[in-house]
């Protein structure tokens, strides 16, 4: 059993939890994820490792309540325990000195971006961060990410904070302004990652994205998480979750992520969440 040590409400639908999981914390690296199961009848869901503390043996998760499992998770309190918590899974981000890097986080994708921003800064990069959300209330971890960034920008759809519009607008400005951008890292809704990748492709800027297909085991056994990368089938749970954004078939990912929408709605309706 894995105990919830801390819980914080980040925004209306986003919550943060610190979970006691010393062996996971010992190995965790930026870019990796865990799979948890709340109880005996629960679904296995993947969540990114948003932060970790090796000394205290804790893993931080930040999740958006979108369906049955995440909503149920949101109702748990400090002191409650999770039945399963396996990780760290997936390949870590490739952290090294690139030069100038632009880190883009959209919505709940801001959470997994945080440890990457931190690690890239510590590796000596010039870090430009761009956070985006529908409105100001949905922004996360602003202060934390800003403190590890050399430049920091915000974009909201409704203009309630920062630039009114999309993160890709801010990225375009940066591309126009900067002499050279060595790498772009984008995590967020599939459509956001697609737009970013389409933009950077034109300028031939290396772009990494972190994909979130539906998963079951997370060990490479079921193939449910398969994504098409440059025409090749890869398993996001073991080969990813980060891939070259210019090679990802985003249309297929969007399609495959809708596979169980009807069933998920039914599950929420019956559970009254």
């Amino acid at each position, binding site marked *: 059993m894995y105990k919830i040590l801390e819980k914080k409400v980040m925004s209306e639908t986003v919550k943060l939890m610190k979970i006691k999981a010393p*062996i*996971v914390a010992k*190995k965790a690296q930026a870019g990796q994820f865990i799979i948890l*199961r709340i109880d005996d*009848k*629960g*679904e*296995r869901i993947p969540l990114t490792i948003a932060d970790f503390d090796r000394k205290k043996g804790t893993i931080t998760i930040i999740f958006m309540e979108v369906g*049955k*499992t995440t909503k149920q998770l949101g109702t748990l309190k400090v002191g409650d325990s999770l*039945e*399963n*918590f*396996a*990780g*760290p*899974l997936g390949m870590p981000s490739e952290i090294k000195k690139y030069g100038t890097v632009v880190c883009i986080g959209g919505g709940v994708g801001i959470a997994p971006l945080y440890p990457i921003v931190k690690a890239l800064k510590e590796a000596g990069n010039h870090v430009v961060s761009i956070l985006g959300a529908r409105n100001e209330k949905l922004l996360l971890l602003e202060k934390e990410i800003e403190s590890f960034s050399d430049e920091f920008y915000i974009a909201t759809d409704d203009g309630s904070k920062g630039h009114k519009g999309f993160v890709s607008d801010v990225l375009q400005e940066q591309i126009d302004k900067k002499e050279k951008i060595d790498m772009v890292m984008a995590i967020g809704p599939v459509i956001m990652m697609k737009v970013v990748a389409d933009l950077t492709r034109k300028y031939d800027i290396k772009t990494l994205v972190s994909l979130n297909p539906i998963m*079951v*085991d*997370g*060990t*490479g*056994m*079921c*193939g*449910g998480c*398969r994504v*098409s990368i440059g025409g090749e*089938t890869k398993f996001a749970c*073991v080969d990813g979750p980060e891939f070259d954004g210019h090679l990802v*078939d985003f*249309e*297929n990912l969007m*399609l*495959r992520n*809708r*596979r*169980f929408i*009807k*069933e*998920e709605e*039914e*599950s929420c309706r*019956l*559970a009254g969440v």
Partner: protein
Amino acid sequence: MAVRKTKHEMPEQSPKKRIKNFKEVPYGYDKETSIEEAKRCLQCKNKPCMDGCPVEIDIPGFIKCIAEGDFDKAAEVVKDKNSLPAVSGRVCPYENQCEGVCTLKKIGEPVAIGRLERFIADYEREKGAKIPKKAKSTGKKVAIVGSGPAGLTCAGDLAKMGHAVTVFEALHAPGGVLMYGIPEFRLPKKIVNSEVNYIKKLGVEVRYDMVIGKTITVDELFEEYDAVFIGTGAGLPRWLKIPGENLDGVYSANEFLTRVNMMGAYRFPECDTPVKIGKIVATFGAGNVAMDCARTSLRLGAEKSYIIYRRSDVEMPARNEEIEHAREEGVVFKLLTNPVKFIGDDKGLLTQVECIKMKLGEPDDSGRRRPIPIPDSEETIKIDTALVAIGQSPNPLIPQTVKGLKMGKWRNIDTDEDGRTSIPGLFAGGDIATGAATVILAMGAGKRSARAINKYIKSKK
């Protein structure tokens, strides 16, 4: 008295009834039938049947006890060699193993060894299994990676020898394929759990959520354990590699069966994990895995369930019993038929599969006749779910993370007969070493490795 030439029938649920539930299909022998069947055994002096059993059960020995009505003694004889008899008594391909070499085959059907093993295992389980005496503690520790039949058997045997054994399992449940692959109606999960509990009672500790290579590496295990056994199976699904395979509606057999069995999707929404099954399901492949997919589909409410296979019925790798059960339940076999592409609608939902007819040519490397496409014989079949069950490759996670481990041709771990790998103290067995095979071969490998590990530890000092 002349010996009866045929096995006693095993009663089972009627096909019409059973395709509406997930309950076990055969009911098993009762006491009287078991005794009668046991009496058919000739008690051959040279015990040919035993040569066919990878876990070395004293077959005439336990059958004699059944014939005499001493079921407790029979259970003791079986358990002496086999820690998972309720499992092997159900899914062992005994027709190719012990029963395949039974002397009675010369005049008719062999003794129903598998059914008798199942009877005795169930008898003992219902009564409450006795825990055998353990050897004195050796103070040595062994780590087992993976809780499939190979790992569990190796763990049980090492515990009986007096070693402290810990099993590291990546998932949240034990059993490997026994839990996530083989369906409830062939191997009830209650039975797998109780066999695992028996292993635990022998003193084995099982730890879940332990993805070795990620959570802990094999090198780190060696810091704490005297030897390590790898039984991580052949979990990597193979694909047809044809266009449209990533459409919504195409699953690997593993994903489909895992959702239904391990995650309990057949009890959705009581269990949270969903599975979507259409009206017309096509399963590709004709092994045990394929039969399980096709039969599970019917139970989930599919109106039509096809098996599509590129060779003919004689080459089908599944056990005859499984093929027979599938036929009775109404699975439609489309043989000498090979898929060439999946077709979807504008929303990306699978709607059809295009296939081409095949004929058989000369035998290939596997000794089976090679299928050759017949030009201009394409046809499209309407389907809304496709299950790809054309085999699995060894799981690459461990090999990727152990430096200097010698690998075989098929990305399997290279071992000798007793499971020794190229690294001293590191052993491997089951599907990870042989490629996808059978439960009983995995158990046999676990058993031989346990002996070799015992020897290794004792010689090390």
